[in-house]
């Protein structure tokens, strides 16, 4: 059965400006079409909300540090592992789900795509093995490049063309999607136990600054014309007062225009902004600077951001910001996992309990909500939890309930043990805005699709687009009024269509679909210098051979390759 018509649903599609009108959507052979024949299966979407499948722009779901987080935390599965009847495998993991649970849970919430936020190129095979085993959802992965020796050397010498050639090579070797930059320079410094906390702190030996790395990578990204922009995790994550470094970093994008054939308008995507919007000087006078940061973001049209919402759970932090994890371990003394990756990057992992009795954690929660509530353009502000850092992705329905209902979030805010302190340190209590379903569709579908350069086929419900569709049991005319009701509605779709096939029905997985690995093949002019440098570094410094570095085809049996021609005449 490959023909469907979704009848009478309330459609929310920012790509067409549809704000809840009742509209039929026809599906045939994996695409949205004008109409279908009378033998099409009718899906009754009366009193339901219809949106494109949601797209996760930043989560840690596949790869070596994710897996280290899994196996070094048996307690994360304790009393939690289970199997539902039907076609699904055993699922487990509260903060770091196993690959099966990851695919199923995203699908149950109406997601059809997830971006693995940080792929260390040397471990790319591992990332792809996990992507391969993650059911239903399409996935891609961003190679981390902000501390890579090739990048540091080329950018120090302002060699944009060589930088671009190297990046093109890495994307092909690792089947990567774009440029991820984590704690630029600081993670290379961390290989000596040091860090770069401002954008002007030079990297030991390489003598390049984070500012130069950020700017250089943005330029290389636009030189190549990649579908996504440079994706940045700023320096000084998590520290009181860091909002200044954040704005300094964002300012580096000023004046740069996006160059690409994919409709992307931003040149910089700033991730989990919540962790980077802090004022104060210590944990005692900690305060929110979300308003200041968002004032800047709102007027800088060539930026996109994602939130990184704290969900007040026990979770696991994991990031390529190695020095930050060491610092966090010093604060909470919980088990610390660290791996420094030769020539490329690092990763750290520490479990974390965002205890709602603690004023600082509650303030972080408030900051995470202030950010999207201050966002003027929902097409540039996306909702994430930097899973699992600020909370598990399975909490998205709860985050939506806080954003869409002042009553729900205020009840939590006023019920905190240290409510007065939290209200004093943040501005959330003053905000009346409630995100609408239309805005939510922008923040979770249309916006991420456009930022990823996928707006032609994904993130919307226009004819010709891919039939990735989520139908929720939400009647916009009778929007649920309590937190639990809102959560339930977003946690269990009525239907999930993936490539025109029903994969989830009534919150139950009924088909594994045919997921694809997305990656970007950017062609550049032949560059003998870069190929020589690559050969040289593999012979002398890497611990594997150059011919054993690339990810073989068999690891991604179904590929969606986006070709970019960056050869300059």
């Amino acid at each position, binding site marked *: 059965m490959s023909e469907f018509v979704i009848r009478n649903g309330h459609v929310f599609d920012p790509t067409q400006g549809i704000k809840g009108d009742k509209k039929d959507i026809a599906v045939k052979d994996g695409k949205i079409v004008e109409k279908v024949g009378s033998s099409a299966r009718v899906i009754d979407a009366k009193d339901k909300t219809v949106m494109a499948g949601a797209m996760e722009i930043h989560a840690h779901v*596949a790869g*070596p540090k*994710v*897996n*280290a987080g*899994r*196996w*070094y*935390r*048996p307690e*994360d*599965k304790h009393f939690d*592992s*289970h*199997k539902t009847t039907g076609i699904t*495998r*055993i699922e*487990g*993991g509260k903060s*770091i789900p*196993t*690959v*099966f649970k990851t695919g199923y849970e995203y699908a149950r919430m109406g997601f059809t795509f997830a971006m693995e936020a940080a792929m260390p190129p*040397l*471990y790319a*095979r*591992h990332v792809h*093995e*996990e992507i391969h*085993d993650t059911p239903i959802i399409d996935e891609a992965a961003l190679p981390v490049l902000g501390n890579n*020796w090739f990048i540091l050397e080329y950018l120090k010498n302002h060699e944009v063309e060589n930088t671009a050639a190297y990046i093109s090579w890495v994307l092909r070797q690792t089947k990567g999607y774009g440029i991820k930059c984590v704690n630029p320079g600081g993670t290379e410094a961390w*290989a*000596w*136990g040091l860090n770069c906390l401002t954008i002007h702190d030079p990297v030991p*030996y390489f003598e390049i600054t984070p500012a130069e790395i950020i700017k250089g990578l943005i330029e290389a990204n636009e030189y190549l014309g990649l579908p996504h922009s440079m994706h940045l995790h700023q320096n000084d994550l998590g520290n009181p007062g860091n909002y200044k470094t954040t704005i300094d970093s964002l300012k580096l994008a000023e004046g740069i225009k996006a160059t690409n054939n994919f409709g992307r308008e931003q040149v910089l995507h700033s991730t989990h902004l919540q962790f980077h919007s802090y004022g104060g000087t210590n944990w005692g006078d900690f305060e929110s600077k979300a308003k200041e940061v968002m004032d800047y973001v709102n007027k800088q049209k060539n930026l996109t951001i994602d939130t990184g919402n704290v969900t007040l759970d026990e979770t696991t932090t994991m990031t390529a910001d190695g020095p930050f994890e*060491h610092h966090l*371990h010093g604060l909470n003394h919980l*088990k*610390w*996992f*660290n*791996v*420094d*990756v*030769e*020539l490329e990057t690092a990763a750290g*992992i*520490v479990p974390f309990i965002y205890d709602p009795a603690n004023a600082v954690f509650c303030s972080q929660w408030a900051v995470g909500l202030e950010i999207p509530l201050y966002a003027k353009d929902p097409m540039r502000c996306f909702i994430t939890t930097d899973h699992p850092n600020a909370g598990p992705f399975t909490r998205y329905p709860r985050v939506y309930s806080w954003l869409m209902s002042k009553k729900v979030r205020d009840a939590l805010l006023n019920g905190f043990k240290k409510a007065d302190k939290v209200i004093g340190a943040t501005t959330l209590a003053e905000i009346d805005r409630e995100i609408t379903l239309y805005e939510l569709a922008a923040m979770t579908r249309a916006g991420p699709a456009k930022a990823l350069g996928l707006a032609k086929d994904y993130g919307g419900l226009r004819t010709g687009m891919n039939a990735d569709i989520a139908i929720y049991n939400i009647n916009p005319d009778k929007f649920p009024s309590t937190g639990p009701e809102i959560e339930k509605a977003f946690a269990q779709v009525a239907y999930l269509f993936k490539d025109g096939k029903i994969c989830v029905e009534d919150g139950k997985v009924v088909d594994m679909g045919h997921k694809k690995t997305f990656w970007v093949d950017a062609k550049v002019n032949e560059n003998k210098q870069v190929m020589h440098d690559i050969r040289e570094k593999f012979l*002398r*410094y*890497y*611990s*594997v*051979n150059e*011919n*054993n570095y690339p990810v*073989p085809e068999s690891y991604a049996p179904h590929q969606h390759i986006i070709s970019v021609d960056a050869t300059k005449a």
Partner: protein
Amino acid sequence: MPKEVTDVICPFCGTLCDDLVITVSDDNKTILGVKNACAIGAEKFNHQRLPGRVKLPRMRQADGTYKEVSYDEAIDWTANMLVKSRKTLMYGWASTSCQAMSIGHEIAEKVGGIVDNCATVCHGSSLIAIEDVGVPSCTLGEVKNRADRVVFWGCNPAHAHPRHMSRYSIFPRGFFTVKGHKGRKIYCVDCRYTDTAKVADEFIQVQQGYDYELLNAFRTAARGEALPDFVGGVPKEKIQEVVDDLKSARFGIIFFGMGLTHTMGRNHNIDIAINLTRDMNDYTKFAIMAMRGHWNVTGSGQVLGWQYGFPYAVDLSRRDQARHQTGETTSVDLLNRNEVEACFYIATDPGAHFPIDAMISSSKKPTICIDPHINCTTEISDIHFPVAMVGVEVGGCAYRMDNVPIETRKVVDPPEGVLTDEELLTRINKRVDELMAKGAQ
């Protein structure tokens, strides 16, 4: 004309050298020579051409002898065993590919198996320690490029990981280590003077079984607290001297092995070594790494990790949940307590390595063993399945001791008619489905 296959990955130990050059006969059937491997790795490739390869499954008869049977007959017997048994030990995995493991897990989930790998008698202690306290670590290339203090504690790479010292840990000239071993100070801590100790700059002899106490003394000295005169046979002055030297390192690394995993306290020895490493990070940069033995035991831990959330001893016997408790769901304990009804061994030889009581228990249960060769386990099994040698006759993903994944290559064809692990497991999986559909369980 013989041809050379380059960039070959050696499927023997956790060093996972990937620079082997294998000379292969024109018809792709015989290995003629091996370059760059150590003696052990060379033997793994060279013995491929020895006559006497088992080509068909062998089934034990009533009189104790073995008779060749077809794959189909043996597969049917195996599937029936799996479907009938309430709890099946599915142990081994450390010498096959990740792709094969994945199929094996599907089978385990269906039939109620307990999936365990060779860590259970090896670095399982290290995994327990990491589960308790984490681990500050790095890739082997970081050691090559940065390390100026290298400590081998309770391990003997000269014997167990022969090319480790030349590829990564002592001799290479890296980016920040242009002087090679002359720019590194090498310590060897062991209860006996090993061949690795001969290569070290300093050998510290610790009384056997006192590593935990000695490491506690190192940590105490690092915090500037007083020490008893001797700990584990090492004088306090020496302890203080070594700790001060380690603090002055630019990048230090501790490699450890069975000297910590198998002496009194086991996981606690590694736990405290990890904590010493953690403490050193308050002063400088320090990392610690387990010298994993098998070439893909790490891979088994990874696949089990992403599919079920645990690195070994994964109990799927309830079929609707995954559980893990070393001491309960580990192979030797399951066998000693007679807690399983059938045994399924793949890519391993517990007959050679497990304690005798465990194997006596195992020998009384219906057992199948999947291995290219006859070994101590095949001869007490009901069925021996021959398969292609992974990394030699079929490729597949492997994980090095520092968790770096490398895809092994097929260098020659397997013997005529011999299945690969992936093919065999796929067929067993299919037969299990057929039996279960018939309502066998």
